[in-house]
């Protein structure tokens, strides 16, 4: 059963798609935002952006670009959830809300290490600034060492820890030098250590500090890192944008070719400044409406149950990837783009199909050849 509305009134799906095409056809500066969709949806969204000169942005671009900005301005060492699970004898968890970012984290990473040829090794876990509400795990009976109470102290503590790892002295930072030294020597004694964080809770400078420390630890031992992916297939959409446009999200086609600018093409800014005159909001994984208070003309492709501040100009219920339809998206457990079957195939239109049908209904502009 399809569910679609035009200006809040129930409408046939075909009529809603046609209305969306009409709105986009007359838009001067469309924005495709949210972008919570699978790889097929991201491909279709980019094709629509190319056809209409639109901007593409993702609802979690902030986090994604914080990690990416560190990568594209310095050096990063990365590993997979699989290697962290199998080889990570020392885990350095950094910042709060990690289990919220990856609910399977305790199950995947906190268990005992498998015995290897070199004998059994107990995993050691250190958690910097876990926050008040974190459930602190015990790995294989060994207590997790937590340090740092206030999350706001995290950057200073991270800097102090990096200094201690490098054998430099530090000023007062709210954690005793003894504890910092204990952690620093444990990190240096790791055989294969892994730093884990979520950019939701860290700023780019803290991430850069952490990545710098991980690099320095590799002077003597092996250490890598596992930034946790934000929800709504953020990493999958990032990768898809990468190979199709050459850029991450926050990329616009207004000039007829892709240009990337994290500030100019920030969807919040484009809406609040009134620059965009038509928004395509995509949230296929969760019933999430845009955060902005403004109500620009909006074409919403959203999961069942999404409520908006004002009725969107067009609202089409779309299926959830991996539930209503088969999909390819990023999985936290594999760290890769992976195929997922439909858990409960429903026939609800996918975001990809809705977007493709909207694109093909557009008045004949100079569309991308393929």
């Amino acid at each position: 059963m399809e569910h679609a509305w035009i200006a809040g009134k129930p409408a046939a799906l075909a009529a809603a798609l046609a209305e969306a095409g009409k709105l986009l056809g007359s838009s001067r500066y469309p924005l495709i935002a949210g972008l919570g969709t699978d790889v097929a949806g991201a491909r279709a969204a980019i094709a629509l952006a190319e056809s209409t000169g639109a901007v593409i942005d993702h609802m979690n671009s902030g986090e994604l670009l914080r990690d990416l900005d560190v990568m594209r301005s310095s050096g990063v060492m990365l590993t997979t959830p699989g290697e962290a699970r199998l080889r990570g004898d020392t885990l350095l968890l950094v910042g709060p809300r990690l289990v919220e970012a990856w609910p399977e984290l305790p199950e995947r990473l906190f268990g005992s290490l498998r015995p290897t040829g070199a004998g059994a090794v107990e995993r050691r876990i250190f958690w910097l600034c876990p926050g008040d509400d974190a459930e602190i795990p015990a790995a294989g009976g060994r207590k997790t060492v937590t340090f740092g109470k206030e999350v706001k102290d995290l950057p200073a503590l991270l800097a102090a820890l990096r200094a201690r790892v490098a054998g430099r002295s530090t000023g007062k930072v709210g954690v005793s030098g003894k504890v910092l030294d204990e952690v620093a020597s444990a990190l240096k004694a790791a055989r294969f250590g892994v730093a884990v964080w979520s950019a939701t809770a860290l700023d780019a400078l803290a991430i850069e500090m952490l990545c710098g420390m991980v690099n320095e630890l590799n002077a003597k031992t092996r250490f890598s890192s596992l930034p946790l992916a934000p929800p709504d297939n953020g990493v999958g959409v990032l990768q898809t944008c990468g190979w199709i446009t050459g850029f991450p999200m926050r990329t616009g086609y207004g000039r007829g070719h892709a240009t990337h600018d994290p500030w100019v093409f920030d969807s919040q800014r484009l809406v609040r400044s009134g620059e965009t005159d038509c928004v395509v909001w995509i949230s296929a994984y969760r019933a999430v409406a845009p955060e902005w208070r403004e109500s620009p003309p909006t074409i919403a492709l959203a999961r069942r149950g999404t409520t908006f501040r004002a009725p969107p100009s067009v609202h089409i219920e779309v299926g959830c990837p991996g539930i209503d339809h088969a999909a390819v998206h990023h999985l936290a457990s594999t760290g890769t783009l992976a195929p997922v079957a439909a858990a409960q195939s429903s026939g609800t239109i996918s975001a990809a199909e809705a977007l493709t049908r909207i694109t093909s209904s557009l008045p004949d502009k100079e569309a991308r050849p393929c």
Partner: protein
Amino acid sequence: MLTRIAGGRVIDPANGRDGVGDIWISGGRIVEPPQGARAEATYDAAGKIVLAGAIDIHSHIAGWNVNTARLLLPEYHAVAEPRPSVTAASRIGLNSHATGCLYAAMGFTTVVEPAMSPHQALQTHLELADIPIIDKGALVILGNDDYLLGLLHAKEGEAAVADYVAWNLDASRSLGIKVVNAGGAAAFKENVRSFSFDDVVPSYGLSSRSILKSLQRAVNGLGVPHPLHVHCNNLGLAGNAETALTTISAAEGLPLHLAHLQFYGYGKEGERGFSSAAAPVAEAVNATPSVTIDVGQVMFGQTVTISSDVLRQFNARNQARPRKWVIFDGDSNGAGIVPYDYRRNDFYNAVQWAVGLELFLLISDPWRVFLTTDHPNGAHFATYPEIFALLMSRDLRAQWLAELPPAAVAVTTLPSIAREYSLVEIATMTRAAPAKLLGLADRGHLGAGAVGDVAVYENDPDRAKMFRAAALVFKDGELVVRDGEVVSYRWGRALTVRPDRDRAIDRRMRAYYEDRYGLSDELFRVPEHALSRPEPFELVPCAR
């Protein structure tokens, strides 16, 4: 539709043809000249050169590593978009669309992505599927994977290794097997910092040699047409010609392909302890008929190195130009993305440039040496036309040599080499030979039954200009390029092999993934439906 390409000089080494004549295409395939039939479309090729579509056997064009390079270097792509062909730097961030267009414009119709990590196979294929016009294929990397090393450690026997190799080829939809610094990525995870052919991966007690030999036997035994594709140990290091010579002698009469050999052509002579050792390496290749190589030519300018040789990339990360990099310890593999700028006035870079050309010119059999730049590691693939020109003109090489540091020129043999490639040799190296090497019976030639992939060039004495922009390119019999401009688009296919295997390996792999990763092996396979293209794959037959 019956198409005739009329009156060009047809150079088709696979069929021993070199002369003025016609090529006829019908139903996407080349056909015998039909008796009394009229072509529905005739293209005048008088005075032009008619070749089969070119085949690139080793070019990093898709997958997480390549995409990470794009995301690492947005500044280069920003330069590229508005003016795609202006500068070398502007070519670096190529997206999938531009990759297909640029290859097609040069007359290339089949390209192999040589470094697909098994667990990232789906992303690689998604990217390949978004590259228009050309057909593709991918080599899957084994040799650092726990399952294989476990089999070898436990001395499970050749049949078990072969079944596992066959399972990987099928699961990842590959055209062949590559091994990258066999055991090196696994050893690096155990904090090993240098790794040679007879060094041992600590946990498994296996030498690089033993891993390579097992894979070589498995690939050969399965009848996979493409020989084991080898990225040797010690890439880029002074004196590593020894590694190349040792690896060549380890072929032991069985087929073995050594990738980007230029990066292993270095001696330790001269004041700086870095010199060309291309001559002895080329001599060894000439004397070892079961070995094929591609060059990995260096050309000057900004590029980015993308390699699964994580150990090498880790050690090179502090030479990054500009200073940023990604080092990845992956599942059973590794990767490193390190930007680099090859400079004409840099002693080492100049030697590297010369070593590549020496290998091209000193290896006598054009059926066993292949044009690559190890794109983008030695240079962007868009530099191929300049390389053709250098191979075809001693005078042009002399002009380039005159601009290089004399100290660099002094430690190479390049100035003394008179050989100039003929068009027939170019056609062999880029068409007939790669088709043979990959087992593609219906490609790389212009005989009846071949795929209708044809490239027509102006016979311009400026060879770089000639090869940069083909006059006409046909893909599956359809005109896709005219005067270097894409005139129509289509989606290509990915070429795969699927040798027979004992299906018991499927159950063993399922159990292994559940046990080791706590995950289903299905999450790492490449299902056809995931690619949302009508026919994404084309199966290439195996010998048995």
